[in-house]
């Protein structure tokens, strides 16, 4: 199934929705972490999965990464992948109320926790703006300290097309950086097209 790219208007609307969502997400995350949070302006593009590894490597760089995946469902259906390049886990642990020694399990839990926070904040922001509601499955670890290309190898991903939403997230003064990728099923890319049309009509 091949998908029509979004029209310029639709793409603009999506960018606008994502910008609003990011503003809200940044505020909520800043309240939670009690720190200034930087969320980049999201970059959105439709992409073939076979180009994915190259595209993401160009954004993130060739290094070992950890990755968390989480499914979302309801009006929009897909999976979000959060890629962590620098974990800075010890500092995040403090921000999130951990007061024990960091071991491997706690580091994993932190990745899952931060992954869940980011995915939730951003996707709820988008669905709120669009007037829909999303459900989320439990996040799971996709990879730890693995070469990025291996994480995003096409044979590990079953979709041919993805909507790639790239957001960079960093917390003031902390060595922490991550990237969020959002994959939607082809069906959802179509659904979203209609929602965006309605959204523009409602403006």
């Amino acid at each position, binding site marked *: 199934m091949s998908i029509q790219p979004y029209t310029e208007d639709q793409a603009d609307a999506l960018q606008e929705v994502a910008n609003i969502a990011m503003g809200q997400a940044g505020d*909520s995350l800043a309240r939670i972490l009690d720190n200034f949070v930087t969320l980049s302006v999201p970059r959105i593009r439709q992409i073939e999965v076979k180009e994915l590894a190259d595209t993401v490597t160009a954004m993130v760089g060739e290094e070992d990464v950890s990755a968390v995946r989480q499914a979302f469902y309801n009006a929009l259906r897909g999976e979000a992948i959060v890629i962590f390049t620098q974990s800075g886990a010890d500092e995040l642990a403090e921000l999130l*109320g951990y007061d024990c020694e960091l071991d491997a*399990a706690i580091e994993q839990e932190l990745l899952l926790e931060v992954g869940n926070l980011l995915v939730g904040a951003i996707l709820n922001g988008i669905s709120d703006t669009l007037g829909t509601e999303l459900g989320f499955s439990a996040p799971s670890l996709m990879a730890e300290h693995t070469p990025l290309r291996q994480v995003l190898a096409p044979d590990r991903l079953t979709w041919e097309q993805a909507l790639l939403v790239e957001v960079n997230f960093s917390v003031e003064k902390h060595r922490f950086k991550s990237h969020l990728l959002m994959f939607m099923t082809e069906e959802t890319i179509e659904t979203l097209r209609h929602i965006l049309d309605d959204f523009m009509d409602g403006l």
Partner: protein
Amino acid sequence: MPDTDAPKLLDFIVDRTHAGIFVVNRDMEIVLWNQFMEVHSGRKAQQLLGKNLFDEFPELPRKWLARKVENVFILKNFSFTSWEQRPYLFKFPHNRPVTGGVDCMRQDCTLMPVKNAAGEVEYVCFTLFDVTDTSIYQQKLKALTQELREVGNRDGLTQLFNRRYIEESLGKEFNRARRYGQPLTVILTDIDHFKQVNDTHGHLAGDEVLRIIARRLQDSLRDTDILGRYGGEEFLIVLPNTGTSGGKVLAERLRHAIESEPVSFGDTSLSVTISLGITELRKDSHDYEQLIGEADQALYQAKEGGRNRAIVFRPDDPAS
């Protein structure tokens, strides 16, 4: 079924379903506690409703959990815990007291925001799943996978790492050392006149000598050093974070460990020595194979020079 039964039905199901369900408000007061929670905690809902969760269950990890709940209120977002990182939230007994092999119920937990009409989060609903069975299967699977991996990485005779694994490790250490600008030394060692052992005493004796030498080499190394059987009577040693001077010291220690004590098997006692070639990562090193090649050249010189010695590879040495 008439519509009017639906709410009653929902109440019944929430209470009796095979998962723990409980709800707290913003002050962490318990407002719902289903039968699963009653049975496993031994605490009745009527004793708990309106009480603070942390007062009633002081063993809960308060700081972390309070933070997590607060985040659900602020973000209006689901939150989760998994047994794989945090085996349980409540220390409940499980249903496999005999065959389980785990101390208490493994739990996956979902924290769900419950919104009021205005869209504000009024409660957080916990759903707690007993995943003890899953965890037991997964642990078995993990142990088995680990075992298979171990077997696949080992040399059957000496139980040292095999050639594939030691080369893979060297490759990784090579990349790491180069990325972080750390030293890396490689030693290739070979048992002197091993062919004669085989010819004179037979292959079984030869195997025994290999096993004993392997053990002695292993015992003389540091925890971070990686030793593998590279070929018939050749061993490769990877020394992360070590330069040639450290490598030379270690090589001498290995040489001495073998030379100082004869190898005994059956009634036979045999003096055995080893030769060693040493090289280190330099700025112009292309790949790990080059290091092995250099160590091999140095080893060749050690053999030529009379055996039972350690030689460091010299890149500008015209002889090499």
